[in-house]
């Protein structure tokens, strides 16, 4: 499976969300994006962004002071 790691360390929200959004835009359905963040706000914001835009949140975890959020791309149909 396509897995893309996005380094969002030191970025404050909403920059991590923007990075994930921009990466997702060019990826096909089923790809996975793994955002590595240091701003704990990303733990709320990236999942909220995924819910709103119809992508699938796979997991969130904390690893040695870093927050890792994995999202699966679902573009679906535009209205």
């Amino acid at each position, binding site marked *: 499976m396509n897995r893309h790691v996005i380094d969002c360390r030191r970025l404050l929200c909403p920059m991590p969300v923007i990075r994930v959004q921009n990466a997702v835009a060019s990826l096909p359905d089923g790809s996975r994006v793994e955002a590595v963040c240091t701003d704990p*706000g990303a733990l709320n914001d990236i999942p*909220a962004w995924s819910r709103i835009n119809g992508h699938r949140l796979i997991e969130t975890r904390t690893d040695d002071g870093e927050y890792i959020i994995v999202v699966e791309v679902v573009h679906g149909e535009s209205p």
Partner: protein
Amino acid sequence: MSEQRKAVALISGGLDSLLAAHVIQAQGIHVEGINFFTGFCVEGHTHAIRKRDQKKEKRNNALHVAEQLGIKLHIVDIVEGYKQILTHPKHGYGANLNPCLDCKIFMVRKAHEWIRAKGFDFIITGEVIGQRPMSQRKETMPIVSGESGANDLLLRPLCAKNLPLTLPEREGWVDRDRLYDFSGRSRKPQMALAADLGIEDYAQPAGGCCFLTDERYAVKLTDLWRARGSKQYEMDDIMLLKVGRHLRPAGRYKVIIAREEGEGKFMQGYRRQYPHLETVSHGGPFALIDGVVDEADVELVARLVARYSQGRHADEVEMAFTDLAGQTRSLRVRPMRPEQIPQEWLI
């Protein structure tokens, strides 16, 4: 069946844009949100940085509003393009360094480009006539629609009845009778409408949607521009203006001293880009130097930072200075006394 029309709503995260989008959605229009990131947005950055604020809920209000509305949200990074707006605003600044009118025009222009690219029909904002002294006045409404190029594709549902007809109204995509005529500074009509619609959970930003309306922040940014001899800034500059105590002992450099652990941790992320100091013999704050320093300056900065360490009353404090090349050396200094620090150093 008639084609479903599509609108993009400028979502700031506050109540007005939430209501405006809701009102249009209720008329059967497909609404998506757009939120612009200028770099100055108040999105809990200081909460994210400061340790004592870590427990506060950190959520992005624009995302929260979009979720309440059940709409998609597109966050657009306009940091680069915004520099020109902030440094040379055609319509000037508000009470501090907030170029609100130019900012609004710029955002609506970007939204207009966006709808053309995405095939949307019109733009909505939560603007209310008279709500804000600089950017939301009767005279500024046509300036925003005209100078942005959006013209009659810009609909303000909360005060549309006080404004000329827009295309969505003329074409009957939206029913003007079900729009509003709010005006003035009062927040009561919006709060009443929110209550009517059963919306209870919303952010009430005090002052404005960004740091540029903050007096302390504006003073620090003005100082940065003066010291550099021109109005320029990078993302790192505007981030660092949000943290620490800033002191300028000389025109060519300033010192940023962490006020607490969370700030220190955040500032350490910049240690490869800035010369910095740490207290070795005692507990003490992390400090960055922004600018050019010589030997004597380093000694002075070390004494200054030592003043904020736990060794402030000691005869001697050991400090470690690291230069841009990553070379660290140790200094033993006598901490400054509070009265030795001139008031004008404090930015």
